[in-house]
């Protein structure tokens, strides 16, 4: 199973995501904010099968991290987790390749379906 990079500023949510994803058999790496995401991806581009990014994080948001990675030509599929079900209305993300949005609270069945689609 491919490695999934999960980013959220809440340790509790990181723990929850890691536990559920590992139970599904995925290898999980975590990041606390957008800066960590960029660093982790650039350290070993291609090591991650999927990015699961919280839209709003301090220092650097998931959206900004994704924008930076896309500008550097990294096309790893990304799912954006956001507090609002319709967060795509709030900021302009039309320039980013985003494979899907996941609303909080997370519907894990829906999340696992999307991950399977994107990583298989």
């Amino acid at each position, binding site marked *: 199973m491919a490695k999934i990079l999960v980013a959220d500023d809440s340790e509790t949510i990181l723990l929850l995501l890691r536990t559920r994803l590992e139970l599904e058999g995925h290898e999980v790496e975590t990041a606390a904010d957008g800066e960590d995401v960029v660093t982790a991806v650039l350290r070993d581009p291609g090591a991650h099968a999927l990015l699961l990014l919280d839209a709003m994080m301090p220092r650097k948001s998931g959206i900004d991290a994704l924008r930076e990675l896309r500008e550097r030509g990294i096309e790893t599929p990304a799912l954006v987790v956001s507090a609002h079900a319709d967060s795509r209305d709030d900021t302009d993300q039309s320039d980013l390749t985003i494979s899907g949005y996941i609303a*909080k609270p997370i519907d894990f069945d829906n999340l696992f379906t999307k991950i399977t689609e994107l990583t298989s």
Partner: protein
Amino acid sequence: MKKGRLRLSPSLANRLTIGFAIAFAALTGMAVIGVARFLEQRQDFEDATARSYQLEIDARSRLARGEDPRAARSAVVSEQRQRQVLRDEITADTRDTALLVGAGLIAGLTGAALLFTGLIASMRRPLEDLVEASGRLAGGDLETRVAVGGLAETAALGGAFNEMAAELQRRAGERDQLDRMKDEFVLTASHELRSPLTSVQGFAELLLLERERLSPKQAETVEVILDNTRHLVRLLNDLLDLARSDAGRLTIRREPAAAAGLIEDAVRAMRGQIEARGQALGLEIEPGLPEVEADRDRIRQVLVNLLTNANEYCPEGASIGVKARRLDADVEIEVIDDGPGIPAQQLEHIFERFTRGDAGETQRVGGTGLGLAISKSLVELHGGSIEAESTAGRGATFRVRLPAIGSAGPTVTHPTTAAEAS
């Protein structure tokens, strides 16, 4: 500048008085001078004529007496000529006087006319400006102001108008700011509450994944945690929708969708929950139901809300029906139940926020009291309508109408959805 009421100012009264005075003085002065001069000339003419007749009579008597007949004859002719000259003069004077009085009249009237025209003009422009500005203000342009000037009256009116507009703008600004703060608060609160709720719900679900290792009592406890978390999430979503609706920011993304498919989706999502209470769920979709221009998620939300209400307010064993048909240019979807119904006084306010069933009922039901208010906003955003019909004790019917696509043209049939419906 605070003025209780508007009175005629000294400036306008003075101008009117002075205007009248000038006009009267001009008229009277010219008439008096003209008439006095004419009377004087008339007197002179009569005196001179009388003198001339006297001289002629004297000359004629000298002629009769035979004294210096040549000189006397010449005097008679001379006096006759003299009187002719006097008559011509007085005729000319009469004409001049008439002209003078006429000119006086014309000058006076013209002056008065000019004065009034000026006064009216100096009031008309500012008044017209005020009328226009009032129109703009009424139309919502709170930045509108008028130029203050001219007569004291119009200046006062203009000043009062500007003051009023500024006050309206200030209040609107305050209200907008309060609205923004409220929206901001709801958005922030909703965002901040979502992370902890995600954790609570996620870890409770995690516990249930190992249900076999929990005692029945523990499993039930976790179920209660999950139920309440879902309720909180629903409340949060409803509050967010409502805040957006109030701010005019509740948006929908419409695309053509088969009405039958939308209805079946909602019914599928609710079937388990309804059957869990031993309630029957019937579905009747007219074949060939047209497409509607709809935000799938939002219409699903509306239908799920109506079905949830029916499910929660009806007793176990009740029957709930969903019927859809084409009606004129619309697709009409009915959610019908045979539950306790809604009393008339509640039915009237059923689409207002926080209107709910009886206190006893709502304790048991536990909805948010916002679902129908949001459903109404959502259906109206789609250009549709929603209504409720009920007789206490004899069930309730909620009716949603959505405009059909191509309602003017022939009915479009969708074999797949029609097949699913049957």
